[in-house]
């Protein structure tokens, strides 16, 4: 599926919650819990993205022209957001990742997490995902 298609899928998945933010966050927390843990060897200083409060670890590799991301966070809500980002961007082509606009976050009503001042480092993570994708594609 393309990035756009996955985004649309997530949007309809979240639509059922409507104004029920508790349901929405419960789902987000579940997503966080079910995200596979990052390999212990990839939990490095280099892979860390520091927000003021919660931390994110991100590892990126290129396989058959697609970027494979694994990631983790010490805060579960952040980890839920991370899970969504991985679902959308992992296994996509670097060029597609670089130009993704990720409008779905706004559409599912979680745009507060995208505030440039948000303490959770999610914005930095998205930037890092794109940067990694570009770097990896240039290396090969």
């Amino acid at each position, binding site marked *: 599926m393309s990035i756009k298609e996955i985004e649309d899928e997530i949007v309809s998945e979240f639509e059922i919650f409507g104004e029920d933010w*508790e349901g929405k966050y419960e789902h987000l*927390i579940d997503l966080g819990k079910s995200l596979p843990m990052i390999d212990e060897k990839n939990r490095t200083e280099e892979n860390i993205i520091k927000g003021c*409060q919660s931390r994110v670890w991100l590892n990126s590799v290129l396989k058959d022209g697609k970027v494979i991301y694994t990631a983790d966070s010490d805060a*579960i809500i952040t980890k839920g957001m991370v899970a969504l980002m991985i679902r959308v961007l992992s296994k996509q082509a670097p060029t597609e990742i670089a130009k993704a606009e990720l409008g779905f976050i706004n559409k599912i009503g979680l745009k507060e997490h995208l505030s440039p001042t948000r*303490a*959770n480092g999610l914005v930095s993570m998205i930037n890092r995902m794109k940067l990694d994708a570009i770097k990896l594609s240039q290396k090969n």
Partner: protein
Amino acid sequence: MIDSKHIREQFPILKKWINNKPLVYFDNGATTQKPQVVIDSIVKYYSEQNANIHRGVHTLSREATELFERSRQTVASFISAKSSEIIFTAGTTDGINLIANGSNFPKGSEIIVSQMEHHSNILPWQLWCERNEGKLKVIPINKDGSLQIEKLESLITTKTVLIAMAHVSNTLGVINPVKEIIQRAKAINSKILVLIDGAQSVPHMSVDVKDMNCDFFVFSGHKMYAPTGSGVLFVKENLFNTLKQSKTGGGTIKSVSFEKTEYVDGPLRFEAGTPNIEAVVGLAQACEFMNSLGVKNISAHEHLLLEHAQKELSTISEVEVYANHSNKAAVISFNVKGQHPFDVGTLLDKYGIAVRTGHHCTQPLMSYYGIQGTVRASFAIYNTKEEIDIFIEALKKTIKLLN
């Protein structure tokens, strides 16, 4: 004693709804909201009184100067100081830096802080030590947040020049026995100076710098119902001449030539540039607001809130409160076991409750407890028991959501 309904009506922002819930503002340790009288004093200042001060011959300037100097008197009385001992600053951090940059301590001196200090009362001294081959020493604490003051005597050496410590911990709420510490330190060496960081005490309790016998005392207006950008540095009168200027310019001088400049004496020497006149006027208004309620009444009300919150929190088995200390201002730091404070804070916000999460600019204190951060609820005069009940309900739901 305190009529909460009447008080809340004076704070326009408290009518706000957040995420379709009435705002419960428990982030008062970070900054307090402002009562209408303070907002009005700003509007009045700019609508009727604004002019640059000190040197103006015209009526507006003369009246603005009188207003400014009257404000200095009000603020001085508020902490039982003389107005000639009050330097207006941009805040607590600004005041501490002014002392750190203006001190005349010899190279190699030792400065003592405590394990629970705010970064603003650590970094300026760390920097001073770095640049002057100095040594920073730390008064350790106990799990309940009390200082190990029995260690004081062994920390003090002949090189000790300053003890810099918080009156009230911004993270734990613990009230430190500053008067006793000052007494003990000066008994060992009367030349040791003591700086008290009153950022979290002045908003919540009566402070008497004379009785306390500190040498320097700093606080911020924005944490005590006054505008952002206002702050106070008290300097004991006889110490003015020992302070170097670290910031200079317009308003500090008797005469200037390229060869030689003569500075004025007293507070004005340290208030270079056009002061934040509006904020100073607002700060005096905030002092009067607190006086009108009675600072003792404010303490008492907030103490009731603290006790209620502590009692309620103790019924939630997942909650771990830091510093079960008997002498506290209305601040509680806690964590939900196994949960990140960021998650707890994010969900509480969804229920309309504003708490602060994270390290609260006290990373060394976090290291002591071996944690990344806490959730902090801190109360002010406009908070109510009902709000605490709403908060406790929301916290229970939050815990459920996270599990």
